């Protein structure tokens, strides 16, 4: 954890100086320092603009994984009201890495499901860094089926490095749990909206990501494999080639919009979602409301039909 963003170097330097000057100012106010602070603030804004306006895919990966980036629970608090968490898959246990429950979006009742990354080491150990086991996917399925029964939309939040790769997960059928969700989600008669807020890690992300509308934050990523994993397989060197792999995989929101895989990008404030969570949440909320309004216009059978067509059309090949 706590992987600093090396490309933020100049920003960090300025922030440090600013902090010092502000403290100085508190103790003894002077016009010169006041002037210095204003200049530094301006320069900070400029640096942020410049750096964040042209992040490379690999830098975007680092922003998407930033430890201060808002997590699912933050979004629940900022966008929804009256969240009531529902626990357990009724078969094995309650996976803390993937959580969900009823909530309200304005006056609309919804079912929320999302990867539960933590904000510090303790939370992350308890919540397995948002890497779910089969029981997590099965709980998600239970909750989504409940949403279908109660006729309310499902909103899922993706933020995971991937499904947990462990002996216990394999033993209890990680593959089956994910496959079952893809299978069932394709036939749900209520709208499904997915928001990728951080890392979209392969099958573990897709396991709650079959949706009528897929929204991505501008610095989030969604990939078939991690750049490190790809680099170690195809370049035989994860250290040296993760950046190359991140380029090649086309895992940024912009690329995925071009490829027709996602439906909308929500712009983050300059400096990334972690620099202003509130503004980020406002953008996410607006996008959800927009798609919900559109999707609520469809009958159940039309909705399923359109989702089937959407996924049928995914893929690029020759004939």
């Amino acid at each position: 954890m706590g992987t600093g963003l090396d490309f933020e170097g100049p920003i960090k330097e300025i922030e440090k100086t600013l902090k010092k000057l502000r403290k100085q100012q508190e103790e003894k106010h002077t016009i010169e320092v006041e002037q210095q602070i204003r200049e530094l603030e301006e320069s900070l804004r400029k640096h942020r603009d410049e750096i964040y306006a042209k992040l490379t895919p690999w830098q975007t990966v680092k922003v998407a994984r930033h430890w201060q980036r808002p997590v699912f629970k933050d979004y629940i608090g900022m966008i929804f009201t009256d969240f009531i968490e529902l626990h357990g898959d009724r078969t094995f246990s309650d996976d803390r890495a993937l959580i969900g429950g009823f909530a309200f979006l304005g006056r609309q009742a919804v079912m929320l499901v999302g990867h539960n990354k933590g904000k510090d080491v303790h939370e992350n150990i308890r919540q397995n860094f948002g890497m779910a086991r089969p029981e997590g996917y099965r709980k998600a399925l239970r909750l989504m089926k409940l949403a279908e029964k109660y006729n309310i939309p499902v909103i899922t939040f993706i933020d995971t490095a991937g499904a947990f790769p462990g002996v216990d997960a394999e033993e209890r059928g990680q593959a089956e749990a994910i496959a079952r969700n893809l299978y069932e989600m394709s036939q749900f008669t209520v709208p499904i909206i997915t928001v990728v807020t951080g890392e979209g890690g392969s099958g573990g992300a897709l396991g709650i990501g079959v949706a009528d509308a897929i929204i991505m934050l501008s610095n989030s990523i969604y990939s078939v494999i991690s750049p490190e994993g790809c680099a170690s397989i195809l370049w035989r060197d994860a250290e040296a080639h993760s950046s190359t792999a991140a380029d090649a995989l086309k895992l940024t929101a912009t690329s995925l919009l071009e490829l027709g895989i996602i439906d909308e990008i929500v712009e983050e404030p300059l400096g990334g979602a972690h620099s202003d969570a509130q503004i980020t949440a406002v953008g996410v909320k607006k996008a959800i409301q927009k798609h919900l309004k559109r999707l609520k216009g469809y009958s159940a059978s039309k909705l399923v039909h359109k989702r089937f067509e959407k996924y049928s059309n995914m893929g690029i090949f020759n004939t």
Partner: protein
Amino acid sequence: MGWFTKNDKEEQKVHEDLWVKCPQCNKHVFKEDWHNSHSVCPNCGCYGKLPAYERISITLDPGTFKELNDAIYPADPLHFVDAKGSYRDRVEEVRKSTGLNEAIVTGTGKINDISVVVGVMDFRFLGGSLGSGTGEKILLAANYSYDHHLPLIIFAASGGARMHEGMLSLMQMAKTCAAIARLNTRKVPYISVLTDPTTGGVSASFAMVGDINIAEPGALIGFAGRRVIEQTIKHKLPDNFQTAEYLLEHGFIDAIVPRSDIRKVITQILSSYNR
């Protein structure tokens, strides 16, 4: 020294023409015997991988196979280039060496006079990876089943998603599952046969959601790679981990069926289907 090496090579070539080395027991098996046993080692009984058309010929009634959508082949939507070169060149190479256009062959045919739609994956084609074209052929096969009310049987053999197609590959998991799920709405049977190996994105999609999941003896089946798990948990895994037998024990496979019995078992299952 020179002539010695050359002689060695020539001898090896003669070997390759006549003999197959079993990947499991390392014994040399007469090629004809290997072929006659459908790539099951006569010595140790382990299962070799089968090329798609060979699998079709031993599974369907002779002369009944009609191929569907054989013209579909991979595009290079991401213009992917890795350390070994471009995806485009890799595809051309493998199309030439295998004579296949994609990692799956699909079509219609009969098993003991029962009409079916089949899909057979071929590991030789980029490790049987699930590309856009692979997913499209599975979708079209499932749609054919749906339209004509014919049972669908897919033989999986795949390392998982095809990285070179990025997220387009991942989305084939959702696409194929959607196609299979739709069969339920018309009560069209779907039998999944998992052969060695069925892992990653293929095990986590269409291969694992059969009405019936059948596996071949000893097949490697699982979600995460062995190495990844070992790195995560920091100790060695049991020998039978992620084998067909392990999955049967844990409840994810209906039956392990020897290659020689697959026609009989599929016939039995489909006889229980009361259309």
